[in-house]
């Protein structure tokens, strides 16, 4: 639990200091040229509750995940109405992978493999903490299954610990301490 509070503390600190990627979204005028090709993530809406992507982007603990989601071109997908349950590994989780794994997956020719791994972290549907049952299996977007375990307040997914959860406008994000690798 201590770790959970720490992680969320970081999340709070990091919230509000993220400024988007290199090219900020342009103001759309009546010419409309810019919104011909932008996807759903480019919708300008600073009032609605953040979606799962925006939550990850707002967290200093999830910079690796966000980089990966962008590289796999899943930003628009996860900005969809969903709803999604996203298991979001923290940066340290990626650091635990064998050296070079992340760098390799970020290469353009590895996009499919990367997308497969990331989609293994996403379920279509909202599974709130109170709905989780010990031994519950979820069929993920990638097509693979994950298994949830619950003991008291402790929740794990394929053995990865859930550190906390954040409600999103289009689902829920569970912060986890390991990267889930498709079996």
């Amino acid at each position, binding site marked *: 639990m201590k770790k*959970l*509070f720490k992680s*969320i503390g970081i*999340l*709070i600190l990091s*919230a*509000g*200091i*993220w*400024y*988007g*990627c290199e*090219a*900020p979204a*342009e103001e*759309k005028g009546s010419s409309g*040229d810019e*919104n*011909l*090709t*932008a*996807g*759903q*993530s*480019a*919708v*300008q*809406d*600073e009032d609605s*509750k*953040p979606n799962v*992507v*925006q*939550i990850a*982007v*707002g*967290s200093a603990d999830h910079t690796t995940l966000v980089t990966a989601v*962008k590289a796999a071109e899943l*930003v*628009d*997908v996860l900005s*969809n*109405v*969903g709803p999604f349950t996203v298991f979001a590994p923290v940066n340290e989780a990626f650091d635990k992978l064998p050296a070079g794994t992340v760098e390799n997956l970020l290469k353009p020719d590895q996009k*499919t493999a990367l997308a497969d791994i990331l*989609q293994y972290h996403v379920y*279509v*549907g*909202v*599974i709130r903490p109170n*709905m989780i049952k010990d031994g519950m299996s979820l*069929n993920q*977007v*990638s*097509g693979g299954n994950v298994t949830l375990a619950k003991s008291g307040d402790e929740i794990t997914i394929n053995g990865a610990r859930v550190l*906390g*959860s*954040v*409600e*999103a406008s289009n689902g829920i994000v569970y912060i986890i301490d390991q990267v889930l690798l498709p079996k």
Partner: protein
Amino acid sequence: MLTTIAAVTLGTLFLGGCKPKTPGSVETGDAASKVYVAPGKYDEFYNILSGGFNGQMSVVGLPSGRVFKIIPVFSVHPENGYGYSEESKPMLNTSNGFVPWDDLHHIALSTTKGEHDGRWAFGNANNTPRVARIDLTTFETAEILEIPNSGGNHSSPFITENTEYLVASSRFSVPIGDDKQRDVPIDTYKENFKGTISFVRIAPEDGALSIAFQLVTPGVNFDLARAGKGKSHGWFFFSTYNTELAHTLLEVNASQKDKDFILAVNWKKAEEYIKAGKGIKVKARYAHNKLEHGTQIAKSTIREEVIQLNIKDFPDIAYFIPCPKSPHGTDVDPTGEYIIGSGKLAAQIPVFSFTKLMKAIENKDFEGKFDGMPVIKYESALHGIVEKPGLGPLHTEFDGKGNAYTSMFVSSEVVKWNIERLEVIDRVPTYYSVGHLMIPGGPTAKPHGKYLVAYNKITKDRYLPTGPELCHSAQLYDISGEKMKLLLDFPTIGEPHYGEALPAALIMKKQVKFYRLEDNTHPYAVKSEEETKIERKGKEVHVYMTSIRSHFGPDNIEGIKIGDEVYFHVTNLEQDWDVPHGFAVKGAKTAELLIMPGVTQTLKWVPERVGVFPFYCTDFCSALHQEMQGYIRVSPAGSNVSLKYSLGN
């Protein structure tokens, strides 16, 4: 803890502009010329588009995207008095009485030998299960048939190759039978809830609808359906979900199994059993409403019986084919050989082969049983799989050149792939979250091709914003080449689910321009101003009224008393195209009438206050439209003002 987390979400900054631009996916330069229909020119296609929760159909031109007409079907329509006039009210009658609204999802256009024939459009009511037939010479709702023993009619109104039948299968299974059989605890779902598939016969001569028979099935949820064609004519394919038979929190409990089913039904065989008297007659209660030709009055009849076959008792009429993860669309290609299952939660699109399916049935190549019925071995019916086509595959249409186009809800795109080779050829984004998609003739044996329209659920930043509720959209793509090209993006009415499109040439010459006065057999019709009159029958006052440019006859009426019920029966005497007259009277607790030339329509008016009340024509009919008015005087109950009426003196 949760409150601090909420604070995080509030403080999180907006993510914008990170999407790599993909120039080339959108054609801007000459796109406008490709959808431009010059003033006075016609569109190439009629698109008959469902209105979803607005209960109507829209008639849209393609490629322009212009809306020509709203056809009210299951919902009242104040614009023309549909569901308000005495003549049209019975069209919305059900076994629950008058139902003024429904949710119309899918369109089926009549076909002969699998090709569009331009006779009728059919639509389904999802909520209070019904199907409707629209006459494509008048673009009016001609018939509505209620479907008994169904909890929700989503898997409908898909039709067979020669429009022999349309189907109406239950999205929501319910307990069926007598009162005692229907009054059961919800948690006895598995034992007591049943699905039904109604085969509604369509009379070839006039399109009249009747329930030929109902198949009783396990309590799965039927989602969508398509008939076989060509070699698979005689079969029907239904997608199912919730084969877990859950009755609560379906978003979790109906997604447990790796595979649900496509149910393949040999309807010709079922027909044989019915002919051989194997069906069981059961009591039911459902309304059948039909517009009479001469009177233009809808007549509602309550029917009380259906014939059922339980598929359990007839093992050679229905086979379950496993299909990954809650299949939504089940679409049959133009040749009739391939059946495309779109598991909306699956990461792949399985393609089944009709030839292999037949072989599997012949060889009894089964992998188990579902509720006692054989389940075909998945691999035995499978032609192959499109791996990782996109996320959230929903629906597939065809171009007749061996390609399939599948909508991807979660990844907001349309994916073009080759059916034989199972290879993705092209993908284009939609804006955003596409549901159905449509190619003119796409579900038929002979697609007209050329365009594809994607119907999108989310439009957030696509148009000038209009508060919390935004329109849904349609996006038109050119599919004449290898690559799909976005040409146009236009808003729609209600929620378009599915639509079909057919070449304008098929129906535009058949359009009725007006109704012939001599054919009008309405009991309150008057064919000339000389015949106009008023009759009192106790408290009922019947005004036999005419309208013609630019007056009503009569236009001065006296002798109405509080407590009377006044029926204005207005006959439009015009015999000219595009000259409807409207009729509205002050204080009427109903909509206007919009009366087509040659037709009689009735507005019921119950005055509650003494005074003189104007009535007028609501449709700008002529240069003297503003003069087209009249007065009706209402006196207190018991007054001795005598009934009189006049025009021009």
